[in-house]
C-alpha cells in the first residue's frame, strides 16, 4: 500500500510517497508554495521519482499553510502533527522537535509514545524564521545555505540585537558599512534566529533527543548556533525539510482504515 503526503508551505512544496507506512519510495521538493504551481510540480516529480502512477497511491494527506487550498487529499492535517510524525519516523526516540520554516517557527513536545502533547509557535513576526534569513542573505548577496556555511568560519560573532526583521536589516547594513567582517555578521544573523527559536523551545520544555526540521534546518550556521543556545545535540536528517510531507504520508497510512470504512 502506498500513502502520499504533501506539504504546501509558504515558499516550497514537498511530497513523500511511503510504502506500507515504512519505506520512503519517492520524495520531491519544489520552490514555490501556496498560490504557485509549486504543489502541482512537486506532485508530478514525486511520482516520476518513484516510478509509479498517481493511481497507485491509495491514500493521501495534505499539510502546510496551503493545506486548505488542496482539495485532492483524503485528509487535511496541521503541520504540527505532521512534523511530529515525520520526525518520529526518522528518529524513533524523538521527544522534542524544532521546526523553522519560511514564515513560522515551532517547538513541539512529544511524549514517550511519540504523541504530540504540546506546542508553541512564534508570534506574528518574521524574526526567527526562514524569511528573516532570506532578507539577510539578499543583503549579503549570498544564498541562504552559503550564509550558514560561511557563518561557521567566523572568528568572532557580531551582535544583531534587533528582533524585528526590518530593524535587523538596517543593523546588518550599518555593521557592513562600518567594516565589520562579513562572516562575523553572518554568524550574528544565525545567532539571532537561534536565540529567538531557543526561547520557544525552552518554554515548551527541552527533552532529548531533540531534532530540527524545516527549510532552515539545512542551514549549518543556524544548527550550530541553536545547539549552543540550547546546550543540546540537535539531530539532523537530510530529509528534515520533508518532515511535514513525511508525517502527512505516515498519517494517511495510519488513517487508511478510516478511509476504507
Amino acid at each position, binding site marked *: 500500500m502506498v500513502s502520499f503526503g504533501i506539504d504546501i508551505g509558504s515558499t516550497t512544496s514537498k511530497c513523500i510517497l511511503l510504502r506500507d507506512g515504512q519505506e520512503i519510495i519517492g520524495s520531491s521538493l519544489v520552490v514555490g508554495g501556496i498560490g504557485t504551481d509549486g504543489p502541482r510540480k512537486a506532485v508530478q516529480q514525486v511520482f516520476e521519482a518513484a516510478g509509479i502512477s498517481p493511481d497507485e497511491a491509495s491514500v493521501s494527506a495534505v499539510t502546510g*499553510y496551503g493545506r486548505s487550498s488542496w482539495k485532492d487529499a483524503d485528509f487535511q492535517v496541521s*503541520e504540527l502533527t505532521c512534523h511530529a510524525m515525520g520526525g518520529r519516523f526518522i528518529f524513533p526516540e524523538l521527544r522534542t522537535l524544532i521546526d523553522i520554516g519560511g514564515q513560522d517557527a515551532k517547538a513541539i513536545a512529544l511524549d514517550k509514545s511519540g*504523541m*504530540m*502533547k504540546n*506546542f*508553541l509557535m512564534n*508570534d*506574528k513576526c518574521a524574526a526567527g524564521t526562514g524569511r528573516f534569513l532570506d532578507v539577510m542573505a539578499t543583503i549579503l548577496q549570498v544564498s541562504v545555505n552559503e550564509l550558514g556555511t560561511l557563518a561557521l568560519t567566523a572568528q568572532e560573532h557580531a551582535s544583531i540585537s534587533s528582533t524585528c526583521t526590518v530593524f535587523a536589516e538596517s543593523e546588518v547594513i550599518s555593521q557592513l558599512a562600518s567594516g565589520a567582517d562579513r562572516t562575523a555578521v553572518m554568524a550574528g544573523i544565525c545567532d539571532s534566529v537561534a536565540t529567538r527559536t531557543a526561547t520557544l523551545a525552552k*518554554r515548551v520544555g527541552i527533552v532529548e533527543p531533540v531534532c530540527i526540521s524545516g527549510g532552515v534546518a539545512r542551514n549549518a550556521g543556524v544548527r550550530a548556533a541553536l545547539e549552543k543556545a540550547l546546550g543540546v545535540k540537535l539531530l539532523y536528517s537530510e530529509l528534515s525539510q520533508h518532515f511535514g510531507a513525511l508525517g502527512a504520508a505516515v498519517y494517511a497510512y495510519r488513517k487508511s482504515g478510516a478511509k476504507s470504512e
Partner: protein
Amino acid sequence: MAEEVVVKKTRPPLDPNSAKFKLGQIAAKAYSDAMEAKARGEKVGWISSNFPVEIPETLGIHVCYPENQAAGIAARGGGARLCEVAEADGYSNDICAYARISLAYAKIKDAPEQNMPQPDFVLCCNNICNCMIKWYENLAKDLNIPFIMLDIPFNPDNEVSDEQVAYVKGQFLAAIKQLEEITGKKWSDERFKEVMENSCRTSRAWLDATAQAKYTPSPFNGFDLLNHMAVMVTARGKVEAAEAMETLAREYKENHANGKSTFRGEEKHRIMFEGIACWPWLRVTATGLRDRGINMVTTIYADAFGFIYDDFDSMIRAYCRVPNSINLETSRDKRIKLCKDNNVEGLLVHVNRSCKLWSGFMNEMSRQIGEACDIPVTSFDGDQADPRNFSEAQYDTRVQGLTEIMETRKEAKA
C-alpha cells in the same frame, strides 16, 4: 438565460420573552437612555468597565461605556478606521485599541457602528488596567470636563486588607460627592440598597447560567457569554438585568433537560478561551472552533462578574478582587477551578496586543493551568479591536494543532 434569483436568508424574529431578546434590549436601551438624557440636558458620563456601576445607578446618572462602544465598533468593522484617527494624532499603535478608538471618537464624535452621547464627565477606575488612567485623563483634558478617578491598586496579597478597603472607601465617598455636585443628583441609601440587591441578584443568575456548562454537552455556546456580558458590565444594578439573567439561567437549564444547546453541531471538544474576544475577527475565531466541534464552554468572565456582596464595604472588597487586580496565583486558581468544573480539555489563549497587562502574564499562567489540569494549551496573536494584529492562517494552524492533540488524547483513552 434564466434570471438569477438570490434568496436572502432572514432570521426569524426573536421571542420577546427570550433572554437573548431581553438582554439585547437592555444593552441597546443603555445607549438610547443616555442619548435621551443628554437631549433633556442631563449630565451624562463615560465610565470604565470596572468602575462600580452601583454609584451612577444609585444616583440615577446615565453613563456609557467606551470599552463596550469600542468593542461594538470593532466587531462591526470600524476598528482600523478609528485607530488610524488616533494614530494620526500621535497615539502609538502599541497602546490599547479600545483607548485609541475612544480617543478618536471623542475627537470625531461620530461612528455609525455605535454612537453614544459625548460626556460631561468621565469616571475612571484602574482596577482593570493602568492604561485606563492616561486614556481617561486625556479624554478629560481634550473635552475639558471633570475627571473622577478611583485608584484601586493591584493586590499582590491573597486577601483584601482593611487598610485597602479604607483607602478605596474614601475615594468612593469622594466620587459620590463630586458626582452630586456635577449632576445635582443626590445619593440615597435606600436606593443604594435596591441597586445592591439587583446587582447581587443579577450576578447570582449570571453565575448560575454560566455554571450550566458543567454538563456535557454544554447547553450553550460559550460565545453567547461574550455578548451577554455587556449587560453584566453596564446594567447589573437594574432589576430588568436581574430578570433577564434569570431567564437566561432558566433557558440553559431547560436546554440541558431537553438535550438542546445553543452550540450548533456536535460538541466534540470543550475548551476555555482566555482573554478578551478578538472582536474584529469574532466570526473567524468562532467559526474556526465551531467547524471543528469545539465549544468554548467557559472564560474568566464567567467568574469575573460574580459580584456578590451585602453592604458598602463588601462591595468595595468585591471591586478590589476583579480579575486584573489580583495576583497570579489567585488568578490561576480561579481559572483552574473553571477548567475543572466544566470538564475543559484544552486552553486557547488570545495574546492580545492591546492588553499588555492581561497577555503579559499569560505565558506563565497558562503553563501552570495546563500542568494543573493536564490539558494542552495554545495561543494566538490578535487584538481586541485593531484588526491589523491578527493572521487567520496562524490562528487556524494553532487551533487545528490543539484539536489534533485533544483528538489523539481521546483516542488514546478509548
